[in-house]
Structures are given as C-alpha cells and as structure tokens.
C-alpha cells in the first residue's frame, strides 16, 4: 500500500548538487531547452494543461497566474521564489532546495521565459541560511554553463537570480510581506490593490511562487503535461510533497499522488504511530491547518475532498499526534505561535490571539467561565472573517476544527 512516487523528487540523490554535469546526465535542463524552443504562450499553455496549482498554500492555478503575469509589460519584471517555508510542520521546500536546487532554479528560468521576467530572487528564510552556500554555488555553476545571465542558451532570454536571506518572521511568507522585507522594511502585508502582479517589488510587476511550484514546472515541461495529469485525481492532477512528522515511525518528506488517503500516508508510508500508541488526531497543512480525528483517516488528500469539508490542504504537512497530547495544550501552542508571529497591523489578529490564550489558560486550569466556550468561538470567528491577512484568518483554524470535531475533548470533559 506504499504510494511513494518520484516525479517532482525524481532527481533526489541522483546527482550531487551543485554539479551541473551530473544534473545534465540525468536529464537536467532538458525542460529548459524544450521551453526555450517554444514560445512563452506555448509554455503557459502547457502549465495550464497540467492543472498545476500553487504549492504555497493558496492553491491558485499556476498557469492562470503566469498568463496574468505575462500580460504586464515593462522593462523590469521580477520573479520571486518563495522559500520562506515558515509553517511549522513543513519542511518539503527545504528538501527540494537541499537535494535538487538545480531543479528548483531551472523551474525559475523556465517560468521567466513564460512571463517575461528579467530578474529572479529566491527569498530564503533565515532559518535555512545553512543552504545559502549550496544555492550560491548552484547559481554560479548555472551562470558558468550559460543557463543564467545574458542570452541564455544562445537565445534572447536575459535572466539572472540572486538570493535574499530573510531575518526570521513567519508573516514574510505572505507575498506582499515578503516584498516589503526585500525592500528592507518590516514584513507587514500591503493593502491590495495594487496587486503584486502589477506592482510588486519596487512597484514593478512581480510574480511570487512557491519552491515546490517551480520544481513542478520543471518536471511538467520536461515530461509533458500529460505525464503529470496521469497521476492524481481529475480535479487534483499530479503529485504533492508531504512533510510527515510528529509521533510517527517514519517522519520525512514523501511525494504521493493526489487521492492518496491520510491512512495510506500515516499508516503505510509513515509506518504508523510511534511506540504503538493510539492516534489522537492529525493536523493537515501546518499550524494554520485543521485537526482531524482518526475518523478522517479514510479521507483522500485532494483539493476537492478537503474543499467539500470546508478545509484546505495548505502546504501539505501531515502532523501525527498520539493520545499522550492534551488537545488544550496543543491549541495553546498554536495560539502562542500566532501571538508571537502576528505583525500587529490589525486588531482581530493582534488582540484575538491574546484573548484566545487567556481563555485556553482558564480552561486548562479548570477555572473556565460559563461564557468562555461561546466567547472563544466568537473571537475565533471574528479573526477568521475580519483579519487583514491570511495569518489572522487561519490562526483559529485548529481551534475551530477541534470545536467542530471533538467538542467533548475541550468542553465536556472540563465540565463546560
């Protein structure tokens, strides 16, 4: 029942980055060659046909985004690879950067051709600064071999990439905060419009995509859209990288076709809960994702299955939590994280996280007020609907899912 795959991860351990010669031998840069042999329009059509959706969490169709971005004219257009990966429980982008940096960077050059980008920036989270040397060496090797710089592969494309290292802030994974951060400011989200694709970095047209999205582009162009759509479900074509972690026997990064069930991931690939203990819940998509009790193990990992439940698969993290964890302690850790990471720009998020922590504290100490269950849900819903950006909107997701799926764990057992 193991369903591990190697499409986006096909280059892992098959060459030693930054060795471009080794990468070439296993088919590296053939995607770029194919892309450059065709028009930008053909490339965008290939990505549209693949059904690839952004892997940074919002799942916006990548082909559509490229088409919109391509429509903006100007002598400077930025293409940013979002390697901020701040979502606790998520480390798949780190694996891609570590084990296949050339595949990620190739995807950026391919995308640059599609949208007419002139300058690339890889925004690397500070916590991954140990990867900076490898990335710089990979870029130097690509420049040396003519895959970056002026007139790439003898054609008209001029494009180069630099690395910007962040300074530690979860919010900088949000596209406009990331841009503020590159500009040397605190990473607070911008008002929209103007949209990034029209006026992003230094007010120039900018496309921001996730690391895994660029790796996906490389694989799709190399093998053809139909190879990608041959996996997964009709509504969720292709494969997804999973960051499997927590109380599980085999934590790690795995690639699975969409449609794989949570059970196949946790019990099959992950070889079950560590120490033979019972499963309490899984959290999907990182700390901003829902808690799903074991009844959900039959659920397939696909956009449509999650959307039907009003949920999202987010970054594709699967955190396994066993019976020894108290849900209230867990929810407290979630709220503490968001309180720490809130940028303070809007009231629902700045105040909401604080108030949720206060109520959780009373509940954990067994001194909750009769009004607390209602209040905590009211605050959570206010955050969900009235926060300015995705951080505040998703901060109460874990709490609201726990209220919905296991109210007895948080209310009844505490006498509320």
């Amino acid at each position: 029942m193991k369903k591990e795959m190697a499409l986006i991860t096909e280059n892992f351990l098959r060459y030693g980055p930054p060795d471009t010669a080794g990468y070439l031998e296993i088919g590296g840069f053939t995607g770029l060659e194919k892309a450059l042999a065709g028009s930008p329009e053909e490339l965008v059509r290939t990505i549209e046909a693949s059904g690839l959706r952004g892997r940074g969490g919002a799942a916006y169709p990548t082909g559509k985004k490229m088409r919109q971005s391509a429509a903006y004219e100007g002598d400077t257009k930025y293409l940013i690879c979002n390697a901020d990966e701040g979502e606790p429980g998520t480390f798949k982008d780190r694996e891609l950067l570590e084990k296949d940096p050339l595949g990620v960077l190739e995807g950026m050059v391919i995308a640059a051709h599609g949208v007419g980008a002139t300058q690339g920036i890889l925004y690397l989270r500070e916590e991954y600064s140990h990867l900076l040397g490898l990335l710089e060496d990979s870029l130097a090797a690509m420049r040396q071999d003519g895959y970056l710089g002026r007139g790439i592969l003898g054609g008209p494309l001029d494009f180069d990439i630099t690395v910007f290292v962040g300074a530690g802030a979860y919010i900088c994974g949000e596209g406009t905060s990331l841009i503020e951060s590159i500009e040397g400011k605190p990473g607070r989200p911008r008002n929209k419009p103007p949209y990034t694709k029209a006026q992003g970095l230094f007010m120039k047209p900018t496309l921001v995509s996730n690391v895994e999205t660029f790796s996906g582009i490389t694989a799709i162009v190399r093998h053809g859209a139909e190879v990608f759509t041959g996996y997964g479900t009709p509504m969720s074509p292709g494969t997804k990288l999973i960051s499997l972690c927590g109380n599980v026997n085999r934590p790690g990064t795995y690639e699975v076709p969409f449609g794989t069930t949570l059970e196949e991931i946790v019990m099959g690939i992950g070889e079950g809960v560590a120490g033979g203990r019972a499963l309490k819940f899984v959290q999907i998509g990182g700390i901003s994702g829902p808690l799903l009790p074991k009844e959900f193990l039959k659920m397939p990992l696909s956009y449509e299955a999650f959307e039907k439940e009003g949920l999202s698969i987010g970054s594709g993290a699967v955190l396994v939590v066993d019976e020894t964890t108290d849900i209230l302690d867990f929810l407290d850790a979630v709220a503490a994280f968001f309180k720490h990471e809130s940028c303070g720009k809007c009231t629902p998020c700045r105040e909401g996280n604080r108030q949720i922590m206060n109520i959780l504290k009373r509940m954990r100490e067994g001194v909750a007020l009769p009004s607390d269950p209602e209040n905590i849900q009211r605050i959570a819903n206010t955050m969900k609907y009235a926060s300015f950006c995705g951080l505040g909107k998703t901060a109460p997701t874990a709490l609201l899912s726990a209220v919905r799926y296991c109210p007895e764990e948080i209310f009844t057992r505490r006498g509320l």
Partner: protein
Amino acid sequence: MDELMRREVLKIIESQGKAREALIPVLKAVQRVNPKQYIPQEVSQLVASTMGISESEVYEVVSFYAEFSEKPRARNVIRICDSTVCRVTHHRKTAELLEAALGIRVGEATEDGVFCLEYSPCFGACDVAPAIRINDRVYGNLDGEKLEEILQSYRR
C-alpha cells in the same frame, strides 16, 4: 562602542551599500561581528546615520525580525524549538538536558559568554523533532551523550 567596532560597522555598510534594501543584510552582518550576538542601541544609531535612514525605522526593523536581538546574548545562540511538532515529541526533555549540561535556564547565558539558551518558533527541522539550532546549524533526535559532544565542539 569601541573604535574597532565602529570601524567594523562602517566597513560593513561600505561593502553592502546604503540603499534601503541593504538594511537587513547590514544588520545581519553587524550582529554577527558582535561577540554577544546582538545589536546595541548605539550600533543601530550609527547604522541609521550612516545609511541615511531614520533611527526609528532602523529600530522597527531590528525589533520586527526574530533574528535580531536588542539584548546581549552569547557567542553561540542555542535555540530550542517550541512549536507544535517539537512539543508533541517532548521538546522539554531536550530543554532539560541542555539546562543541566550548561547549568543555566532557558532565557539565560553561561557566565563565560559561550552559550545562551532560548526558545524559538519552528525552524523547519520537524522531521528530526525535537530539534535545536546552534547559530545556523540544526541538530535533532538528541540524547545526552550526543548533545555533550556537540556542545564540546563549540567550546574550543
């Protein structure tokens, strides 16, 4: 700030440039050269006046980002992740091992200024949780023996 540090800071700005987008790289570099891994107020002021940015804007950036510290730390900063994955895999046990090995509590620094201990949000090492970070290197799945070996390598 002594003359040596002053010159060091000016040299960093010289090499990074004075554009606004150089501010974060400059602050990283000036913190790195400080033996206590922090950015004293007078250094922020010097960065502000040399780069032509207002002091309040520099402070705002220093206080916004977790990498920057306004308080003295130590030559080696040890961060213990206390986000969800490390919590459910019992990060407190690692914290206790570290506290015992160094004779300090989380939030403190050793007297010789070699190590300090702090909690940190997730740094993307959840596959080896509970994880710690010493400066920019990550370690996970630790036991007492392994930990002692690692600490020794930073003591030199």
